[in-house]
């Protein structure tokens, strides 16, 4: 069997092919311009002074010595931000939100995590700025900190925000708490469901704080022109998101800010939050010079937004034949220093793979003294999948049912009503499970000392706003202009959908990603939305082009537009065979028939098809050292229609490997007070090439009815199954159930020792 299969239902001309990406040559020759490659004349370098304490009151900051240091041009603190001079009365209901947003960027009264910005310096170069940082004198009153999510929930725990009160299902509590929100969904009759079960199992699971691990550190260059225009060149997943954040914090109209998204060196959700942009902007305003900042790797770990640690309790009831009768979960996620963990997505995704009649899910968003968490690939869903898919594996073991058969019996399908109330449209989970069952990996024999695990995962995928403009050049080449940042090949996949719609060659579409002044609002590249939503924008703009070309042909042939059809790149008169023009021929005549043709579209599509993935993992465990090696791995996923199968495979493989890292080795080590101890790539152990086998893939194509070519997002579902797949494989190899991530060699040894004892 081949390593990479595509189970295709429909074939197109350009969609579904594997062309070289338009930005490829620039990226293999070093010519592509990433954020840190921005170098405006006279650029100053900024460094951010950060709190060494996870929780402390800032009593005083003295920047005078740093300001006097040779080469330093400006020093700022929270006092230099607009919030400092705004009153609660002026802001009204926006007060807390703006305080959180501003304080997160630069602390005013309290620091809430180690690495929390406290001041920033612009100097002639980074070395000078670094040296000057030692001269800023900050007096802290160190406070008791709280690191563990469940400890933070207890009454009497140290409080991060004295005025944070729990929003409990819409009701605000009377007393302050670290629990920001409690949310809950339920369906059916839980008690009845569990009463009907032949077997009820209930277990607890934990996962550690992990990082997206993009290789390019956060960076920004800001230049505040004398005319009041603020320009930002930055590494971001969403230029309009950066614009909105900076506009909010600096109280500027959005049109006064132009954000140019540079090439981005990875994001995975972590490059949505704008950490440095407003800081560099204020420094630029103060100095009159461009100001650039790049985080060190330590700053990236300590002060960007990791994915939250979690605690989860899962309870499932089943009949002896494996049919699920009831499910229940409680999940608590640490949001870090400010509210906003993805626990809502966690509880919504937790049981989405299953047809559940009776269920209840509860989620708690909890603040702790850690960096504010951010999105990481299917935010919330991987933790939930680890817990639920692990318990299902345990149930299958008890009932002696094949884990794929169990999932097929209970799988969600078109029409399944989920616990939160949404009804599934056409989805491909069953097809993915069948592909897994039929794969030779699943049928292959296991060697001694090895184990196999399977798990599935779900991500709803997203739509949201996208804008596209395309112009037809006189040579018939189409310039495709978009606001979606290209992280992993979307220039190619949007160009393919454009070419397909226009019936022209892929090579005749030239995509460009532009700044916020040059295109309509476009939401972030994230949520597995870009190939889908920006794809729809491109298809719709291409339809606009087609209509205009038809009207040009009508002009040339002096006939009605109704007499003309545009099929497969040919514009033809429906009844006169002589009257035919290719796309290129007609393009040549646009100048003399009314000027250039521009197609445009701004969309906000719903109809994103849900994504499902099924993974099979084989591991071998060295029982003497506890070390786990993944020896074979197959990722199966419904892509709806793979626009560029190589990049779909890349998403599946990349997600699987991030999940393998999350499963086995990746974690933030905090000391008791919340100081991260392993803020380097040496000690934050992401998988290397030597830690992995090839990642085999099967692309399942169950067309999404919400997209003209059936496309579904693929980026995120891929990271949901691997942790449970690996954990289940470790159980299969060792006989011990691992319910806490990561499954380190130390934990495997401990589990072995404990099982001997008991």
């Amino acid at each position, binding site marked *: 069997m081949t390593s990479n299969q595509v189970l295709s239902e429909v074939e197109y001309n350009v969609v579904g092919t594997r062309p070289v990406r338009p930005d490829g040559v620039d*990226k293999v020759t070093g010519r592509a311009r990433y954020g840190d490659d921005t170098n405006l004349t006279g650029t100053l370098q900024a460094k951010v002074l950060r709190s060494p304490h996870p929780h402390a009151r800032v009593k005083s900051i003295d920047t005078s010595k740093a300001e006097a240091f040779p080469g330093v041009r400006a020093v700022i603190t929270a006092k230099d931000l607009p919030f400092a001079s705004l009153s609660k009365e002026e802001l009204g209901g926006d007060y807390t939100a703006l305080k959180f947003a501003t304080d997160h960027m630069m602390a005013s009264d309290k620091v809430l995590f180690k690495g929390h910005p406290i001041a920033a310096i612009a100097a002639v170069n980074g070395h000078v700025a670094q040296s000057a940082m030692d001269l800023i004198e900050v007096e802290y009153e160190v406070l008791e900190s709280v690191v563990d999510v469940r400890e933070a929930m207890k009454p009497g725990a140290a409080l991060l925000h004295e005025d944070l009160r729990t929003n409990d299902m819409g009701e605000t509590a009377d007393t302050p708490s670290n629990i920001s929100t409690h949310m809950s969904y339920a369906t059916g009759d839980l008690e009845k469901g569990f009463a009907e079960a032949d077997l009820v199992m209930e277990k607890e699971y934990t996962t550690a704080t992990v990082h997206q691990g993009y290789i390019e550190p956060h960076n920004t260059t800001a230049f505040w022109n004398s005319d009041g225009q603020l320009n930002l060149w930055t590494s971001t997943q969403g230029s309009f998101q950066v614009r909105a954040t900076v506009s909010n914090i600096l109280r500027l109209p959005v049109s006064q800010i132009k954000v140019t998204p540079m090439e981005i060196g990875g994001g995975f959700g972590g490059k949505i939050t704008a950490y440095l942009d407003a800081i560099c902007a204020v420094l630029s305003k103060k100095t009159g010079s461009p100001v650039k900042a790049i985080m060190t790797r330590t700053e990236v770990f300590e002060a960007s937004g990791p994915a939250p640690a979690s605690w989860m309790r899962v309870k499932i009831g089943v009949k002896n034949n494996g049919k699920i009768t009831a499910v229940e979960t409680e999940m608590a996620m640490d949001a870090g220093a400010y509210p906003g963990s993805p626990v809502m997505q966690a509880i919504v995704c937790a049981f989405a793979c299953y047809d559940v009649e009776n269920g209840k899910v509860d989620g708690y968003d909890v603040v702790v003294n850690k960096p504010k968490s951010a999105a990481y690939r299917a935010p919330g869903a991987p933790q939930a999948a680890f817990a639920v898919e692990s318990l299902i594996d345990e149930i299958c073991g008890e009932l002696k049912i094949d884990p794929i058969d169990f999932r097929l019996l209970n799988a969600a399908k078109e029409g399944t009503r989920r616990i939160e109330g949404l009804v599934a449209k056409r989805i491909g989970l069953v097809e993915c499970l069948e592909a897994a069952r039929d794969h030779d990996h699943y049928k292959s024999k296991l060697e001694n000392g090895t184990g196999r695990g399977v798990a599935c995962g779900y991500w709803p995928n997203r739509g949201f706003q996208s804008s596209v403009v395309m112009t037809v050049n006189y040579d018939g080449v189409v310039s495709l202009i978009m606001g979606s940042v290209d992280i*992993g090949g979307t220039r190619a996949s949007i160009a393919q959908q454009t070419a397909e719609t226009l019936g022209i060659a892929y090579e005749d579409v030239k995509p460009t990603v532009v700044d916020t002044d040059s295109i309509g609002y476009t939401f972030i590249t994230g949520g597995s939305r870009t190939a889908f939503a920006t794809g729809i924008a491109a298809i719709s703009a291409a339809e606009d082009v087609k209509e205009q070309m038809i009207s040009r042909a009508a002009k040339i042939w002096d006939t009605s537009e109704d007499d003309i059809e545009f099929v497969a790149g040919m514009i033809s008169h429906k009844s006169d065979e002589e009257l035919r023009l290719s796309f290129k021929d007609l393009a040549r005549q646009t100048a003399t028939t009314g000027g250039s043709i521009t197609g445009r579209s701004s969309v906000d599509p719903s109809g994103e098809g849900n994504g499902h993935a099924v993974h099979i993992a084989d591991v071998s465990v060295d029982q003497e050292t506890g070390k786990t090696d993944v020896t074979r791995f197959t990722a199966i996923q419904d892509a709806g229609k793979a626009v560029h199968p190589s990049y779909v495979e890349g998403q599946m493989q990349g997600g699987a490997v991030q999940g393998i890292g999350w499963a086995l080795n990746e974690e933030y080590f905090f000391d008791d007070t919340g100081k991260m101890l392993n803020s380097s790539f040496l000690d934050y152990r992401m998988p290397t*090439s030597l830690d992995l086998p090839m990642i085999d893939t099967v692309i399942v194509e169950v067309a999404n009815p919400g997209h003209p070519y059936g496309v579904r997002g693929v980026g995120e579902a891929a990271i949901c199954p691997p942790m449970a797949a690996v954990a289940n494989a470790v159980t299969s190899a060792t006989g011990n159930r691992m319910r806490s991530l990561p499954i380190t060699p130390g934990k495997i040894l401990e589990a072995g020792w404990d099982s001997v004892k008991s």
Partner: protein
Amino acid sequence: MAGVTQVQTTLNGEVINFLCEPRQSLLECLRDVLGMTGTKEGCNDGNCGACTVIMDGRIVDSCLVLGVEAEGKDITTIEGMATPEGLHPLQQSFLENAALQCGICTPGFLLASKGLLDQEPDADEGRIRHWLAGNLCRCTGYDKIVRAVLQVSKAK
């Protein structure tokens, strides 16, 4: 403050001179002094390989080499990999095999792979995985990178 030093080195086949402070790394000198931004910074402590260059035939992390140490050395960066005739076979193979997603680690992987195949033209998968373990990629899971290198290796 320590003074600046003049350094003469061979960079991508050309003898060049530049001025730097002793504390500036070769990575800083390439990017900030010489404006050659193809070499990327990922961690600045020798753990990601994004800044890999070839120095006197060996791959090194340019963040862990001082600029002044480049004196008299022969250095190849990503800017020196393609020729006017076209891309290096590894560059072509990375493109055809979709061996890059975000692309930030790509220059480092290309230089590291070149360093390997220059010495061991027949490197197999195991050897490639071992050799590239000093280069982190977070997008691809390495599968397509290893295949891209393997394709050139077998072609030789």
